[in-house]
């Protein structure tokens, strides 16, 4: 029992329960003393917020800071050692690799959860008419599917960047190890709170939470707001940490244009996350306050404006999609050269295109509002800026194609997923212009065409690269390779199913199927296609089940990975054993060449610096 209570996660959950109870009790108690009837909503919101803080205290997130506040010293982050074994993933660790894996576990858990929601409502949509869930539960599920997976994606990106960035740039850890751990653990209670939304009445707004609807939705809406607020906070902290790490902690000789391309992608992503996430937090907080305190920010009857919310919301949520995809595109650029045995074509252009996408991404938010009733003339400039995104994205595609051209391709599982990512993301990219062009968007907006489009971009820009990354770096984490046969089954089952699914979604969207509807009119003629989409969704789920089996079985039974199994030039493969040791490189390395000079004989990217380094 004592052992059990020493696990950070357990004390955290206890802290969350205590915090929630204090929050609810406090407000109810005050109202009772004033002779007022209990009110559930403010109590629940305060409970949820204090619960999250309670979790952070319970897990030990404030311990060192409290110690410093008392004027006492703590250990340095480098002196920190984890408990050996798998148990270290359940507690408060300062090691970026442990935190990376923790992010990964949370991300995959949320992915399963969000995917399950989709399977439930996809089953309902297999046929017209309501068969086995209620309208309200359906509406809650679509919103949950969206937001749970968005948080899952943010966690997955943090997993990749936390684990990889210090390894790739030759740092011992992140710039701020304590802040890093704090950022991760903040997302855990936030995830608990968002799941709680289902049990507190749900919400019927979709993930966008537009008022006035969200101002009158059930209590679950407030849980959703609180969860997103804290998850956003976690994202901001993580982004800040990554920017400092990338800018300040690179190995000697690694100038910006010798960084691994993934570091560029993470830099661009983090710049967006650091500067835009506040807007979604603010917009949700304002709706929350409208509900709690009657502040009519978005209520026309009180002089508010519902369109204001949409501007604030999309000012984050559009750049956010680039947060979701840029790291994945970075993974594609990172893995392609290894498997085609050729340099990444136009390294600087690819690096700059990430920054270009990040920059242009800030100028396009109102393309989500072409039919919203905002000032009409605004639609044209936003159409120009939106389509401009095609230019840096095009550079990436052309560069990848040129990288593959005349390459000596090796078809290992990570490469298959990389190729899948390119093709799927291409489809996502090409279905963008009809949406970005106002005239055609008048028809397509809020239809299943949009659903198909962004599933293509997010699978191509995140899911496929994530799987590629897991298959590629799994040996670095566990010391064992994942099973190739199962990996290939996963790929060859998931890819066609996924393509069928999104083609189906786009087809019904063009024919007039609206987004987020629980039921559809059989007269519109998309019954069969919907059935096919549902079947395809289940096949994807099956392929991901195979992935999980592979993930667990290979950890114990996988082939032992010795040495540079991918013949990569990157330092974590060229210099480190698998699994990667604590605090990474015992001996610092120098960067003496370009990262992707495959095919240039005798060249090296990194070499271990001699102990008596020449000066």
């Amino acid at each position, binding site marked *: 029992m004592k052992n059990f209570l020493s696990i950070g996660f357990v004390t955290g959950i206890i802290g969350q329960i205590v915090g929630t109870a204090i929050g609810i009790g406090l407000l109810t108690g005050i109202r009772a003393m004033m002779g007022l009837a209990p009110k559930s909503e403010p109590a629940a919101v305060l409970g949820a917020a204090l619960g999250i803080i309670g979790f952070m205290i319970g897990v030990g997130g404030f311990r060192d800071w409290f110690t410093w506040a008392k004027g006492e010293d703590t250990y340095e982050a480098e002196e920190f050692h984890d408990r050996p074994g798998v148990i270290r993933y359940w507690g408060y660790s300062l090691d970026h690799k442990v935190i990376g894996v923790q992010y990964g576990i949370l991300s995959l858990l949320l992915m399963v959860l969000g995917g399950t929601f989709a399977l439930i409502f996809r089953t309902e949509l297999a046929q017209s008419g309501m068969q086995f869930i209620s*309208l*309200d539960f359906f*509406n809650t599920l679509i919103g949950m599917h969206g937001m749970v997976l968005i948080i899952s994606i943010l966690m997955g990106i943090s997993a990749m960047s936390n684990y990889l960035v210090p390894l790739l740039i030759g740092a011992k850890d992140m710039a701020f190890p304590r802040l890093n751990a704090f950022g991760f653990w903040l997302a855990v209670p936030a995830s608990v709170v968002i799941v709680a939304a289902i049990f507190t009445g749900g919400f*019927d*707004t979709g993930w*966008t939470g*537009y008022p*006035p*609807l969200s101002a*009158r*939705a059930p209590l679950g809406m407030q849980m959703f707001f609180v969860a997103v607020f804290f998850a956003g906070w976690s994202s901001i902290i993580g982004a800040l940490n990554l920017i400092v790490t990338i800018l300040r902690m690179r190995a000697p000789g690694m100038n910006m244009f010798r960084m691994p391309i993934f570091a560029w992608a993470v830099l661009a992503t983090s710049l967006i996350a650091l500067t835009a996430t506040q807007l979604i937090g603010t917009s949700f907080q304002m709706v929350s306050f409208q509900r709690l305190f009657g502040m009519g920010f978005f209520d*026309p*009857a009180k002089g508010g404006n*519902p*369109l204001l919310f949409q501007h604030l919301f999309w000012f984050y949520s559009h750049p956010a999609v680039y947060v979701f995809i840029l790291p994945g595109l970075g993974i594609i650029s990172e893995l392609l050269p290894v498997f085609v045995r*050729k*340099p*990444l*074509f*136009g390294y*600087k*252009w690819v690096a700059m295109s990430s920054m270009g996408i990040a920059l242009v991404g800030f100028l396009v938010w109102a393309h989500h509002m072409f*039919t919203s*009733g905002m000032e009409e003339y605004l639609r*044209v400039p936003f159409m*120009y800026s939106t*389509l401009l995104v*095609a230019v840096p994205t095009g550079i990436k595609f*052309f560069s*990848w194609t*040129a990288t*593959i*051209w*005349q390459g*000596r391709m*090796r078809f290992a599982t990570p490469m298959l997923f990389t190729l899948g990512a*390119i093709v799927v993301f291409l489809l996502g990219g*090409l279905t963008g*212009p*009809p949406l970005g*062009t*106002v*005239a*055609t968007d*008048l*028809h397509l*907006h*809020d239809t299943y065409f949009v659903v198909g489009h962004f599933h293509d971009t997010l699978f191509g820009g995140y899911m496929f690269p994530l799987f590629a990354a897991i298959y590629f770096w799994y040996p670095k984490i566990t010391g064992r390779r994942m099973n190739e046969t199962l990996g290939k089954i996963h790929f060859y089952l998931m890819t066609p199913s996924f393509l069928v699914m999104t083609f189906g979604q786009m*087809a019904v969207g*063009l*024919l*007039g199927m609206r*987004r*987020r509807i629980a039921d559809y009119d059989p007269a519109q003629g998309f019954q069969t296609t919907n059935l096919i989409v549902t079947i395809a969704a289940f096949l994807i789920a099956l392929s991901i089940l195979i992935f999980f089996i592979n993930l667990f079985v290979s950890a114990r039974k996988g082939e032992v990975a010795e040495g540079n199994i991918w013949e990569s030039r990157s330092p974590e493969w060229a210099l480190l054993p698998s699994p990667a040791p604590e605090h990474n490189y015992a001996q610092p390395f120098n960067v*003496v060449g370009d990262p992707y*000079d495959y*095919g*240039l*004989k*005798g060249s090296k990217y990194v070499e271990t610096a001699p102990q008596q380094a020449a000066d």
Partner: protein
Amino acid sequence: MTNSTPSPENKILIASANPLFLKGLEKMVLGRYGESARVRATTTTSETLDLMESWQPSLVIVDYDDKSISRAEFLHQFVAGDLPMQVMLVSLQASGAVVVYDRRTLTPAQAQDWLSTPQNQPQSKAPISRRSSSMKHYVFAGALVLVLTFLVDLVLSVTRLLPVQASLQAKPIDRLFDIEIVAISFLFSLIVVFIGYSLIVFRRKPGQDEDGAYFKSNNPLEIIWTVIPLGAVIGLSYLGAITLGETRQADPAPLEIKVVAGQWFWRFEYPEYGIVSDKMYMPVDKQAKLTLTSMDVIHSFWVPEFRVKQDLLPGENLVRELRITPSLLGEYKVRCAEMCGTSHAYMESPVIVVSQTDFDAWVQGELAAIGTDPAARGERWAKNNGCQSCHSVDGTPGVGPTWQGLFGQSVELMDGSTVVIDDAYLYTAITSPNAQVVKGSTPNVMPQTYKDSISDDQIADIIAYIKSLQ
């Protein structure tokens, strides 16, 4: 860098005026050849040429970018000599490419071997043969791109992608779709063919272990594929703007229809005729000017066959406008396209496009139907205001209480008091729904705007109608 190491004695001459270049290379060379190598550095052409004569280096590394080393003079002297010597021209600027000259003297027999055995072929020959064969690849792949573009476009244009085109506004939109489909087909084919071709033709065959072709970057190419897409997107945006303008052309004398949306109904008012209806009748080929407003949350007006879409916002100052000219007779449905709560999926109402004659007949019929029986009128108002989307009239449970047998019941309110449902209570319940909420119901569900949108006379009729439902 080169695979043959100058030996037995490595004498390496580095010619560059750039001290960084010198230092970096010197370090690298020493690291590579170890202590046996001797390195000397020169910074001018004459110095270099002198040393080439007197010191006889086995390898000369020349800074390609350095103008103070005359390349022509240097190469002239190099070609004139006959001792074994290798020369590397190294550039730091353009993509890091390296040019290598290998000077050796061969006996006729050696020359014969050199010509016939491929493994003895110097590296410098490879790019030439690769270039001519790669031209062939580009031609093949280019042809495949065209074929695939044609096929994809063909498949997409014979498939029925869009619903029937039933408005004038739909025409330019559909035309733009066609253009976009051609562009999508081409770009898809371009990328997929080049990648697919590469996968099949250049993939690693069993037994092969060498790396891919070494080329890193090509700035003119990058500029081309930045500028051309830039032009294309500007062109597409321009077309988009033109098309948007066409859909917004306003007729000076349109038919005005006020569209009011609420959870979860549509109401259509014809101010010219004083008609309120739950179906939208439209005369064909006559532009309708829809003024759109919502009673509660955001909804969106969309008839897929008409293509155009516009959100309806709550608030008097946020009334929006949409122009539609139906061009095809038929019965369609307006479907709410913005998530608006529980019954969003079912927020659909008929939109009926008829000839002008039929439209006039419908108007006459509607006006005549406003009869003398208050209960019959009330049924009409109730239907037109969407009351039945929450309140059934046959006892079926709904979002709100059913109207059947409602009048005369006594109910308990949220504050614990009991009231009998009579005329006065019903009037309050319609005009200010939150005033006396029945225990077990949720406040704020029923819109609170009926006191403005339905006249007192009509409310009296609706109450008469509720009374009649026993």
